[in-house]
């Protein structure tokens, strides 16, 4: 292992995985953590809870489509919702750099309050620390969240019931958040209209949970993108996942940026996209339900579980060829070669 932490360890790719498995998991080591789900599923007196934590360090703090506060609430709500739970309570810890603007802090807090109202969750505890100028980058937010989980939905986060023929859905185009952030940083040198897709997905997910027995797996496709979710799912379940490139929704503007900078949209971060594995029988109904919601209008079937006993993701390309999808080591960088 590297003697030092590098920025790649935070990318959500293979380096992050190596760090988690090699350092954190090997030390903390228990059967709940070992599932490495977005939310831990814990059982207290025969009731199940989903329990999650996350930290938000995004730069810039304000971006088209939201800010770090909105992101914190949406991200935590989504981690809970994709486990099949009803998000209920959130805590927030703030680490704020000396000199940070109070009016900006107010705006962030108001966004959080607003988003919590939209998502129907309560912020029930918090903490605030201030550090000297230069000791953190403007503002960091840590959250934890609890969701109420029915026992019958516990297998959703581990895809315990996955089988060949199950279909894979996503609720809309990928890559918007990553490109919006690059634009907000002034790194692009390209003019385009783009906004982060940052949104709380629990209302969308609750609509399809009426098909509870047919929802096999859910995960939100954040850092590392759609590809990382699928690779992790394939490896976790030992399944062969086949996805179809023409069916994966990507905005034209995001496609053009990717062509110009050499990015693969499959690995770009999202903050309002859920990947679902659903039963073949109810796929059409679930798709229709997703499409009737404002956060699911562009939902698509993008692939299926082809077989078991392998643990790989195969992409059928736009010209009918096939290639394997693997985890990236680290973040993508713009390239000219």
């Amino acid at each position, binding site marked *: 292992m590297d003697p030092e932490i590098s920025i790649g360890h935070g990318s959500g790719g293979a380096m992050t995985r190596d760090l988690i498995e090699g350092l954190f998991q090997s030390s903390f080591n228990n059967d709940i953590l070992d599932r490495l789900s977005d939310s831990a599923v814990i059982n207290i007196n025969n009731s199940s809870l989903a329990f999650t934590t996350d930290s938000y360090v995004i730069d810039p703090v304000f971006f088209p489509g939201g800010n770090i506060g909105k992101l914190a609430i949406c991200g935590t709500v989504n981690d809970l919702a994709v486990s099949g739970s009803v998000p209920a309570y959130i805590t927030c810890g703030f680490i704020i750099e000396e000199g940070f603007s109070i009016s900006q802090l107010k705006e962030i807090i108001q966004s959080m309050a607003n988003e919590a109202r939209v998502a129907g969750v309560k912020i029930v505890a918090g903490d605030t620390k201030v550090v000297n100028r230069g000791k953190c980058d403007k503002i960091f937010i840590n959250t934890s969240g609890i969701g109420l989980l029915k026992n019958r939905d516990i297998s959703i986060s581990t895809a315990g019931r996955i089988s060949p023929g199950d279909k894979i859905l996503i609720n809309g185009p990928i890559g918007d958040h990553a490109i919006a952030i690059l634009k907000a940083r002034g790194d692009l*040198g*390209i*003019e*385009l*209209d783009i906004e982060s897709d940052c949104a709380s997905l629990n209302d969308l997910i609750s609509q399809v949970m009426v098909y509870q027995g047919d929802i096999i797996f859910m995960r939100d496709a954040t850092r590392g993108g759609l590809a990382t979710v699928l690779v992790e799912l394939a490896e976790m379940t030992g399944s062969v996942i086949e996805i179809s490139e023409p069916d994966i929704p990507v905005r*034209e*503007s995001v*496609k*053009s*940026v990717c*062509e*110009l900078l*050499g990015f693969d949209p499959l690995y770009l971060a999202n903050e309002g996209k859920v990947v679902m594995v659903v039963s073949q029988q109810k796929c059409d109904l679930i798709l229709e339900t997703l499409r009737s919601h404002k956060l699911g209008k562009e939902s698509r079937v993008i692939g299926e579980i082809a077989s078991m006993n392998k643990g790989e993701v195969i992409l059928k390309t736009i010209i009918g060829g096939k290639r394997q999808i693997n985890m990236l080591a680290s973040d993508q960088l713009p*390239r*000219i*070669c």
Partner: protein
Amino acid sequence: MCLSVPGKVISLDGSCAKVQIGEITCEVCIKLVEEVEIGDYILIHAGFAIEKLSQEKADEILKLLNEIFCMGYS
């Protein structure tokens, strides 16, 4: 080694051109290509236009596909 994408010239400003690629636009330096005009398609690489694209030649490929491969594409 050469990631280069085509774009359409939509305005000119001295040795720079504004180029449209799908729904996005960017600026490139046109000092490496002669007589760039609005409406031209150029190849973009590292912030420069490196060559003009020929619609005539692109049409020739289509003809080749039709003749050699009898594909009937138009």
